[in-house]
């Protein structure tokens, strides 16, 4: 197993290399540069040129690429032109925010989707099933920002149950219980919004897997052993139906850092999704390229993680 994992990491190197070239070329094609936004009638063109020279933007393309790669390996992803801080610390801050939000969201998604999927599959075509399927379709059809705005209006503005922006209460002291509670408190509304809308795939998957599993021969065997139906579900059907979801878990875990632009924007929550879109708008190269490289790496890592998880839960799949 360790061998395979090591090999998969080795294979990632050329994959990431190709990705880096693509990103670099795309960045080159983007119109303008960080300084074009600074130009006003008052700026001295020579000063701009000087800045360009200083930033290395006048070097030959391959030299720029090389410097970028070398710096990246040293952990230096450059500075954000818009936020005036190093990209590493920027992504560190935002990433942590997003991580908390995603963890809570994904937890809520599973908490809602798994029981609903199981009930829908077990009582197929019943009223319960039809209600759940209806919910999952409606939630699939509602755009995030619509529900987000409704929730902000109702729970944040009208009822004042939840804060409507930020990540924590500035008055609480770091390290106190109140401080952590305020973090969770700020997370709740965006996480609930995400969870209510993000359950469709898991409900549908689980429902159809359970319906399939019920018809499998091993379920017949289990029933012919005289096992009560409840136990047949918990011991035989449920676990086997979770396989496809387990297969996706790796991507879900690495996807935790992705963030959601809409949720973060609506709830004024500074996270990765918003950072990504904002930096594209601002042509903040170093942030964009770093984020894409990071997402590329996470996707590859996610597929490896998924394979490892699957090999743990499904004895038929062994990676050597």
């Amino acid at each position, binding site marked *: 197993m360790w061998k395979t994992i090591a090999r998969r990491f080795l294979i990632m190197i050329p994959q990431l290399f190709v990705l880096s070239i693509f990103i670099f070329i795309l960045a080159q094609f983007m119109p303008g540069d960080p300084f074009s936004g600074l130009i006003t009638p008052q700026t001295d063109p020579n000063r701009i040129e000087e800045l360009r020279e200083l930033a290395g933007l006048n070097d030959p393309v391959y030299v720029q690429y090389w410097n970028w790669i070398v710096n990246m390996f040293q952990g230096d992803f450059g500075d954000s032109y818009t936020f005036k801080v190093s990209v590493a610390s920027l992504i560190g801050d935002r990433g942590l925010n997003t991580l908390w939000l995603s963890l809570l969201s994904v937890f809520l998604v599973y908490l809602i989707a798994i029981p609903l999927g199981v009930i829908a599959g077990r009582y197929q075509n019943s009223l319960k099933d039809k209600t759940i399927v209806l919910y999952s379709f409606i939630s699939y059809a509602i755009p995030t920002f619509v529900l987000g705005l409704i929730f902000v209006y109702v729970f944040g503005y009208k009822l004042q149950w939840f804060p409507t922006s930020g990540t924590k209460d500035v008055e609480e002291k770091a390290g106190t219980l109140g401080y952590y509670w305020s973090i969770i408190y700020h997370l709740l509304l965006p996480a609930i919004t995400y969870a209510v809308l993000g359950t469709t795939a898991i409900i549908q998957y689980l429902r159809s897997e359970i319906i399939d599993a019920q018809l*499998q*021969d*091993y379920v*017949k*065997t*289990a*029933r*012919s*052993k*005289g*096992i*009560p*139906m409840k*136990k047949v579900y918990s*011991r*035989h059907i449920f*676990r*086997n139906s979770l*396989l496809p979801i387990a297969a996706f878990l790796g991507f879900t875990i690495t996807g935790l850092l992705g963030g959601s632009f809409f949720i973060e924007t609506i709830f004024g929550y500074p996270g990765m999704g918003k950072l990504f879109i904002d930096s594209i708008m601002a042509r903040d190269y170093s942030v964009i390229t770093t984020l894409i490289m990071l997402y590329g790496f996470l996707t590859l890592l996610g597929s490896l993680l998924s394979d490892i998880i699957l090999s743990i*839960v*499904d*004895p*038929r799949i062994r990676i050597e």
Partner: protein
Amino acid sequence: MKTSEEVLANNLKSSNEILKINHLRTSFRIKDSYYDAVDDVSLSLKENEVLAIVGESGCGKSTLATSIVGLHNPLNTKVTGEILYNGSNIVKLKEDDLNKIRGNDIGFIFQDPLSALNPLMRIGDQIEESLFFHTKLDEQQRKKRVLELLDQVGIINPKRVARQFSHQLSGGMRQRVMIAIAIACKPKIMIADEPTTALDVTIQAQILDLLLDLQAETNAGIILITHDLGVVAEVADRVAVMYAGQIIEIASVQELFNNPKHPYTRSLLNSIPQVERESEKLEVIQGIVPTLTKLSKHGCRFSPRIPWIDESKHEKEPQLHEISPGHFVRCTCWKNFHFDGEKGGSHL
């Protein structure tokens, strides 16, 4: 000499009826109407007996088998009639009471052991499950019993196999494991639904021998569902032939193979490639088995497939008639039956 010995032995051993099926009817719902897949079947099974149920696909033999343990979905299946076991009618039992019989008094063996075993559960755990629900053994005793069972079904290294998963075993080993599950609680009845169809012939022979050996130890009655008349001839004591949901002939195994009466039985036997008739043409049965929805409920169900036999030779509402002790044949058409092209009346 061995033949008569065997017959004698059969008569001796088959005395106690352990299962009695009366007028069993299993109907499936297809587009809001019910169709009878098993149509008024009456049978009995004795202790230590192998009762084979043969027929081609779609004749209702597997439905019959699963009806006995009530494995059908009650939402689209109707079962009526009586299945008498140990003084109670299985058809009328509640799910909880049925569960006390399933796996405990009646063991079930399925056709394809690969799909019939849970791929995610260790072999040992799958056998132990039966013991957990039906016996008072504690965990250690159960584990010990699992190893005994694996040993009993001829698995060389029980300790290792108990820890393995089904995909790690060969087809023959898997079927042995299925048998171990079926016999875990020493059932009085074993139902084997095409237990060797998915296996190679040498493995098939081993599995059939194993079933008979286990029967000799436990005195269980076996209902063997199969389409393979060769397998029937090798292991059965009594044979019921099914066609279109009905039993059309039932007899002891010698009687059925040496003195078959119903046109369907005779045609089936003649369609088997045999050494004695190597160069001859095989018997072909005209037409096809009627599908459930197109089945005519009146008259002899086999008559459309022997159109050269005059309609008047069939009974209006064909019944099973006992033509010699223990030999039942449905309809009267067998008396005047001859193969297409042959001269008629030879069997009168």
